[in-house]
């Protein structure tokens, strides 16, 4: 069955491999350019200093946006694979009726599905992981140049093991949608819609609750104050960047307060109000206010814990969906994907009242229940007692 599942999957696999190869070539060519540009910036930084400025110039060459887009594509790939590879996997057989051919060969449906899942699942996960690795290699110079970069953010993971979980989930979702909806195109649409919804909703509603975040209150470090200024009515504005004090951490929220608990924005801006004021004067002023900084965050050391927990959750979802598929397809269940014929005939098993005409020999006999079933006529439920 594995061999046959493979022959059925070959074309899709070839198309997928082709797309992946094209992506690889594009990423390789641009990635080499990108690496050169980074090396040039890094070399200049070694010679002349002003690294921040040089890296900033490097990032604003358009690579930064391209990198973000690619990262998003890395997340979309499992969804697309789920849509183009998995949804048709079963749906097309149900749609074209070939399941009637496949399921009457000398292999049980359970094995048929298992083989399909094994081949296609392995391919989907491998393709998704391969693409993730390529994107990560491509964007590594951007990550190096961007001091504030961390892979540990509020969004879904774009590297590590979690993408394997996403791919497995998308794949199981595609198969399940195909099996339940039985038609290729709607199944593809549903797969993509649900996958997108889950990948967006999970980091918002589920991930913050996986491990309780750490909350620390400490004196505000001036190193973490990125931008200062004043509002029109003279209040202080502080923008903090905690990446410098908590490298690699996922910072959920920061709050700067005065020692007696008021928000920092309620303080007069003082020398920070005008842009002409010297940075030193502004910093001194902020230092004199003795601000407290409360940071809610997940420490960098938890990165892999989150990766594994998230992978496990997605894999569990995938397994549940796959289990549903097996339950659904297993013979002995009444919920089979047989496609009912179009109703042409109305009468059901319930008899309609038959108008009694003058000649109704069988009916008169029946009234007395005396008629016995002739041997040649098989008994039908409710018809003869």
């Amino acid at each position: 069955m594995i061999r046959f599942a493979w022959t059925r999957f070959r074309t899709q696999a070839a198309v997928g491999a082709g797309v992946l190869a094209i992506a690889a070539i594009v990423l390789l060519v641009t990635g080499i350019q990108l690496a050169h540009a980074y090396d040039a910036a890094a070399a200049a930084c070694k010679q002349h200093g002003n690294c921040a400025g040089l890296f900033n110039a490097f990032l604003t060459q358009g690579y930064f946006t391209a990198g973000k887009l690619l990262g998003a594509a890395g997340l979309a790939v499992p969804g697309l694979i789920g849509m183009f590879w998995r949804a048709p996997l079963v749906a097309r057989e149900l749609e074209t009726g070939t399941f009637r051919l496949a399921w009457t060969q000398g292999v049980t449906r359970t094995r048929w599905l298992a083989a399909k899942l094994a081949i296609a699942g392995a391919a989907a996960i491998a393709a998704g992981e391969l693409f993730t690795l390529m994107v990560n290699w491509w964007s590594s110079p951007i990550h190096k140049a961007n001091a504030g970069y961390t892979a540990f953010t509020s969004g879904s993971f774009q590297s590590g093991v979690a993408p394997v979980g996403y791919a497995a989930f998308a794949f199981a979702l595609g198969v399940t949608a195909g099996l339940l909806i039985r038609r290729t195109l709607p199944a593809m649409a549903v797969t993509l819609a649900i996958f997108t919804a889950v990948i967006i909703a999970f980091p918002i509603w589920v991930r913050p609750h996986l491990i309780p975040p750490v909350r620390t209150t400490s004196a505000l470090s001036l190193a973490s104050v990125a931008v200062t200024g004043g509002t029109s009515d003279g209040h202080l504005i502080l923008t903090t960047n905690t990446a410098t004090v908590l490298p690699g951490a996922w910072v959920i929220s920061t709050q700067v307060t005065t020692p007696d608990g008021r928000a920092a924005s309620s303080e007069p801006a003082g020398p920070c109000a005008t842009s002409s004021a010297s940075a030193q004067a502004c910093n001194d002023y902020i230092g004199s206010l003795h601000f407290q900084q409360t940071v809610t965050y997940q420490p960098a050391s938890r990165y892999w814990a989150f990766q594994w927990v998230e992978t496990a959750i997605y894999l569990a979802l995938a397994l549940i969906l796959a289990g549903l598929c097996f339950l659904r397809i297993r013979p002995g269940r009444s919920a089979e994907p047989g496609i009912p014929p179009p109703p042409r005939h109305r009468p059901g098993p319930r008899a309609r009242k038959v108008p009694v005409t003058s000649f109704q020999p069988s009916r008169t006999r029946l009234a007395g229940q005396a008629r016995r079933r002739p041997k040649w006529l098989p008994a039908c439920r409710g018809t003869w007692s």
Partner: protein
Amino acid sequence: MNTVIEASGLGKRYGRRWALAGCTLAVPAGRVTGLVGPNGAGKSTLLQLAAGLLEPDSGGIRVLGEPPARTPAQLGRVGFLAQDAPVYAGLSVAGHLRMGAWLNHGWDTEFAKRRISDLGLNLRQRAGSLSGGQRAQLALTLATAKRPELLLLDEPVASLDPLARREFLRDLMETVAEQQVSVVLSSHLIADIERVCDYLIVLTASRLRLAGETEALLATHHRLSGPRRDPRTLPASWEVIEESHAGKQSTLLVRTSEPVLDPAWTVRPVSLEDLVLAYMSQPGDAARADLAGLEIAS
């Protein structure tokens, strides 16, 4: 008598509509059984239940002594040709034969190859570009080359022109003679059934109406015409299948195992087509009236 299919109280529902209801029957082994009935009578449903593609909503079915499609062994003993002969459009004829060899334990490669070359099919041709007749032949090859004990054919000739239909049936009969299989074949064309079947099952409106050996059925049904009579005066052993009365004349289709001795009746034999049509065209008929009677009684 050995049976290949045993059903008791078998029923299958699509939504609220029963496609097949309360069907109890035993299909004998070693026969070519014809399953006839109008469109939507439940023929496909019965065959798909037997192939294990559908699960019953009531009652049960055993095929070759086992519940259908539970084990590879049982699947290997039953060949199924679905309606419209589905094949993988993108897969070549040779690819289909490979599939058969990989998926079926008892696959007969020699037989399959010989049959395909006898049919003049190109092994490299994609199944999607075959004609309807060739596709049906390919599907029949797949169903027979696994050397089944029971062959279930759902409207195998429906999409074929008369010539192709004749060839297909001849071919089927040769295969049957060669392999000693039991066959259940559905069709709404009685002529096809008459040509190849020696056992007959009639389904109408989701219900089983008649089952029996073709010859025995023909021998026990008679077309009678004679002076008009009150049916209550007819012999109790007669089963009146169809009756029409015009003026003083009555014409009856009767089932009885006893000879008709009353000289008032002119007795003529019935053709299989007449017989089947009589059973099929009984809308407010005996069985239905029985059911109504039962419902009132209970």
